[in-house]
């Protein structure tokens, strides 16, 4: 369907994506999401999901351990801050490379199996990394406290270039621009756009086509002369690097790293983002990440007081009932909503929101066609450029 896009359509998509993203602070203010912390999260988890989608969406290999790469990326970035420089670019390069190296190891082992075996292996290996972060690796991870910056850090490069942060705890800055607030978001956004562009190139490339072939029919693929394993490993490592980069960005916007980022729940979250938006579509995971982070933000902020207000229009007993039922799902109970959403999506809409959009679109198109009944006139809906893929 959308795979045979013209170069022009691709550029339009990229430009549209960039414009929406860069204008997000203004566009999202009316819905209460126009503040930098949340916008940064959109971008960071968008990158994470984009990368995950290259593995899961294209090859169909379901990894349950991608949060490990996110965590490793964070640690690598914070260490770069401590040892070398507060410049985010260096930290991101290190985070991406370390995330990649780590995923080579885990990918090499777990890709010897496929299907459920692969999922279990990635889950187990990620859980092992998580346990290690709390035990053997405490010199690197600082255990439960988490890895933090200190005034006494060496920062060799900063010292060499005469940067002095004085008596305050330094924050990362790009040649003098501090990476918090809106500058931090725009920094993330630029990287997000670059990642989106790269992901689009991969989707359109022969390499991307081979990855879809892995999902479609591995037997035919190997009898066609293609070696399946390096393709899956390459996809795994690329997605691991995306995750490392996302973890690095987390550290850039907030220079501390903790092992909880590596937990299986975090891995589950990126899976959910990807399938919610639509695995295998270019734009789906980005939408999924945005939707989940947005609702997480809204729902976690709710408490009984807010709910009572919300259901104020109802009679007292109904109000009470509604409040007590819905309070299960908000605030602390946000994870319950997440789990329920997970099930609902898998059961009713395995293709995710993108599939939902497409269904609605073709439904509308069919309805319109019935109304006009004029074959000569091109359908207006059909001419809308494909939003995804």
């Amino acid at each position: 369907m959308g795979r045979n896009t013209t170069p022009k359509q691709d550029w339009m998509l990229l430009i549209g994506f960039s414009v929406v993203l860069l204008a997000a602070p203004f566009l999202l203010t009316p819905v209460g999401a126009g503040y930098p912390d949340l916008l940064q999260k959109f971008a960071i988890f968008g990158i994470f999901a984009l990368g995950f989608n290259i593995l899961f969406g294209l090859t169909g290999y379901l990894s349950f351990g991608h949060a490990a790469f996110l965590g490793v990326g964070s640690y690598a970035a914070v260490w770069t801050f401590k040892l070398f420089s507060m410049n985010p670019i260096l930290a991101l390069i290190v985070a991406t490379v370390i995330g990649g190296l780590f995923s080579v190891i885990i990918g090499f082992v777990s890709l010897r199996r496929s299907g459920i075996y692969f999922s279990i292996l990635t889950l187990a290996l990620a859980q092992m990394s998580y346990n290690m972060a709390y035990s053997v690796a405490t010199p690197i991870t600082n255990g439960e406290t988490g890895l933090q910056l200190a005034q006494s850090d060496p920062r060799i490069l900063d010292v060499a270039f005469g940067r002095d942060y004085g008596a305050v705890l330094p924050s990362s800055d790009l040649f003098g621009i501090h990476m918090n607030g809106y500058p931090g978001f725009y920094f993330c956004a630029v990287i997000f756009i670059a990642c989106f562009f790269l992901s689009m190139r991969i989707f359109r490339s022969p390499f991307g086509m081979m990855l879809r072939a892995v999902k479609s029919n591995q037997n035919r693929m190997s009898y066609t002369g293609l070696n399946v394993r390096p393709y899956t490993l390459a996809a795994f490592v690329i997605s691991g690097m995306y995750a490392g980069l996302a973890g690095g960005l987390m550290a850039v916007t907030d220079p501390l790293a903790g092992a909880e980022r590596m937990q299986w729940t975090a891995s589950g979250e990126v899976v959910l983002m990807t399938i919610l938006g639509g695995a295998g579509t270019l734009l789906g995971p980005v939408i999924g990440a945005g939707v989940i982070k947005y609702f997480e933000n809204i729902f976690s902020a709710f408490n009984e007081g807010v709910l009572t207000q919300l259901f104020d229009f109802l009679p007292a007993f109904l109000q009470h009932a509604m409040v007590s039922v819905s309070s299960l799902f908000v605030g602390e109970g946000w994870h319950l909503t997440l789990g329920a959403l997970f099930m609902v999506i898998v059961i009713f809409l395995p293709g995710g929101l993108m599939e939902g959009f497409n269904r609605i679109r073709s439904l509308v198109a069919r309805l319109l066609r019935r109304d006009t009944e004029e074959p000569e006139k091109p359908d207006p809906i059909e001419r809308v450029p494909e939003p995804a893929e």
Partner: protein
Amino acid sequence: MSILSVENVNKNFGGLRALNNVNLEVEAGTVHAIIGPNGAGKSTLLNCFVGRLEPDTGTVLFDGQSLLGLKPHQINQTGVSRVFQTPEIFDDMTLLENVTIPALAKRDGSFRLNAWKAVRGETEIHEAAHECLADVGLAEKSQELARQLSRGDKRRLELAMCLVQDPKLLLLDEPTAGMSRADTNNTIDLMRRIADQGVTMVVIEHDMHVVFSLAEKISVLAQGTVIAEDVPERIKGDARVQEAYLGGAHL
């Protein structure tokens, strides 16, 4: 010149002797059929050709090179393509993509991280793929998804996927199994045309009609042994073949 030579191949499954000292020579540029009753060891032999099974003893030489122990993708890279009993295609991709993938595999080898250039920019590959689709008569359907094809068309697509690689040897495992008469005849015509282009083919087949309208040479396998190997006319009259294959009835 023989392109595939099988020498003294034996294969046992537990106590069952599936292949018993099989010798076979396939001449380049010919269509060679392997026939035999059920359980004669045809599929086992084919699996030995493509490295799925390793013979207990004996050698399989393709173009003077041993294929034993090679992985399927390595065997393909030496120039052997295979058509399966049930078409193995990329179901959820378009026909054009189905043929583009083998074309790329032929050009780029078993792995290449070609992740920057767009597929649509690979003009030569696309032309070759279109040409092959046209050859098998599927040109108009190039943008359809492969899973929507009829069984006969799926077989054509699979043939196109093999042909685009310009194989030195094409292995076909019951290419007309489960097809209607009309589809079978179309497929025979198609394979005839392919054969006329000089592609070497080894066909494993049940259907005598197919075998005798295609093959230039026939090997008859019975109980793991090659009992006859000759041109079709003489195979037809061979008493041993009739005995083994048809229990004495005349063809």
